[in-house]
């Protein structure tokens, strides 16, 4: 396999946008192409991460539409759908295309337009990821699953509601420093702990918002990267693993085995260990997931992840900053865009282009994107290549 470099990236502001899905994807893609200095270049392939365009904006085959909008014709183009990990799956596909030698220059975009639909409609569509006969028809939603996982953690490991609130406070504070974040407002532990209950013990502030947005990256072989940039970022490892669909049938419902396996794969491929990572983006659709993912990825001992936020380890200036972007909690969660946006944030961090939220001199970064509720996980490890 060839070494693969990310040579440029870009994204739209996340939140409630005036533009439609194609506007968002086109804007993010052109920003990434400009950032890469690849405006004059011919692209071989385009991968578009998106979960619900057909259901939410009544448009299908969106990758064909994107290459038409931004004139990448006749590049190969396809949409990649893997639930809320559609973005990371698209990045993975782009990586494999370049690594295999099948493509030299690849655009990966991810986007979702969600805010025009009612919250009930979104919650229902997202709930259709659950098992159709033994979860969905019973009324199981993603917040319900996250709540049941949270309760297991509280009773088994001594997690308290306060820890969830502290993660929300951290991620809101990081989001305040991110001009692309959906939520740019500080919150307090007390404020978070007095927000409404969605699924006991989960309150509104322990869950991410519904957002519009798109993000994009440009990939090429490491060899070719020199033609474009002095600061290529190498994708040194990826992992992708699944688990049984229902939460109840997992070996241990408090363990995200797909995160464990995918992380181990990525670390093995990168010949690195968790201690080598300087900055992390997790899939905190619910704040409990930042804790569980950080443990099952190997950064903290099982059952001790919540102590990291308490001690400031995961703060911007801590030993292992997690979600400097604000995470899904504050940057927002346009589902198909999220996995790409995580990579965009980490590329900016590695290149020292993250502005006020810049982590001090990171060399290696780790991203975890979730394509279900713990039953499909895509991991990427990135490294400065200069």
């Amino acid at each position: 396999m060839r070494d693969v470099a990310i040579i440029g990236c870009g994204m739209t502001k996340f939140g409630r946008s005036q533009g439609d899905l194609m506007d968002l994807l086109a804007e993010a893609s052109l920003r990434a192409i400009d950032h890469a200095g690849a405006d004059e270049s011919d692209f071989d392939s385009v991968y578009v991460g998106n979960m619900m365009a057909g259901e939410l904006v009544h448009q299908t085959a969106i990758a064909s539409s994107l290459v038409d909008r931004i004139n990448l014709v006749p590049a190969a183009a396809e949409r990649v759908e893997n639930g809320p990990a559609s973005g990371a799956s698209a990045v993975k596909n782009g990586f494999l295309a370049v690594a295999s030698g099948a493509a030299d220059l690849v655009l990966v975009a991810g986007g979702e337009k969600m805010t025009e639909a009612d919250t009930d409609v979104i919650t229902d569509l997202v709930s259709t990821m659950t098992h159709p006969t033994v979860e969905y028809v019973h009324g199981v939603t993603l917040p319900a699953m996250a709540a049941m996982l949270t309760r297991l953690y509280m009773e088994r490991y001594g997690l308290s509601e306060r820890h969830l609130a502290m993660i929300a406070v951290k991620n809101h504070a990081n989001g305040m420093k991110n001009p692309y974040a959906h939520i740019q407002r500080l919150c307090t532990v007390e404020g978070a702990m007095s927000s409404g209950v969605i699924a006991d013990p989960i309150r509104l502030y322990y869950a991410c918002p519904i957002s519009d947005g798109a993000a994009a990256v440009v990939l090429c072989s490491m060899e070719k990267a020199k033609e474009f940039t002095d600061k290529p970022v190498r994708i040194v490892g990826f992992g992708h693993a699944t688990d049984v669909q229902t939460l109840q049938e997992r070996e241990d419902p408090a363990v995200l085995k797909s995160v464990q396996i995918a992380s181990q794969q990525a670390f093995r491929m990168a010949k690195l260990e968790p201690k080598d990572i300087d900055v992390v983006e997790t899939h905190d659709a619910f704040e409990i997931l930042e804790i569980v993912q950080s443990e099952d990825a190997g950064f903290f001992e099982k059952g001790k992840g919540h102590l990291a936020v308490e001690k400031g380890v995961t703060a911007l200036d801590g030993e292992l900053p997690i979600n400097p972007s604000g995470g899904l909690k504050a940057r927002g969660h346009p589902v198909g865009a999220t996995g790409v946006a995580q990579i965009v944030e980490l590329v900016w961090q590695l290149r020292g282009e993250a502005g006020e939220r810049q982590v001090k001199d990171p060399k290696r970064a780790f991203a975890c994107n979730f394509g279900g509720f713990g039953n499909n996980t895509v991991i990427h490890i990135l490294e400065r290549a200069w």
Partner: protein
Amino acid sequence: MEQKFTGFKCKSCGRVMYPKHDRCLSCKGREFEEVGLGKEAKLVTYTKLYAIPEGIEMPPLILGIVEFSGGVRAMGQLTTDDPKTGMKLRPVWGKLRKMKDREIFGFKFEPVNKGLKGKSVNEVGG
């Protein structure tokens, strides 16, 4: 009338699963027989869901994961509004929700000591 909550036992290796898979999670066997999972299960975790889906009459919807004595677990609605981890529940057939005007039926879980006056809910297994 008592309805039996059933799982699926692999005819090759004997592993019992719920829900049904087309291949056994242990040995990839493809033949199964339906077996009862037992009359009682223990509550593993639960939530009171206030943001309820369509076709549920009133919040909160109480959902939980229960574990039968053989170790097989199931997720479902609980009929009690005072769930406690570890409490004993039994499967009961009932209406789950309405979906597009269609009524969906299935198993829910009710406390074993329901209706026994004076009994405390603290009488639950660990």
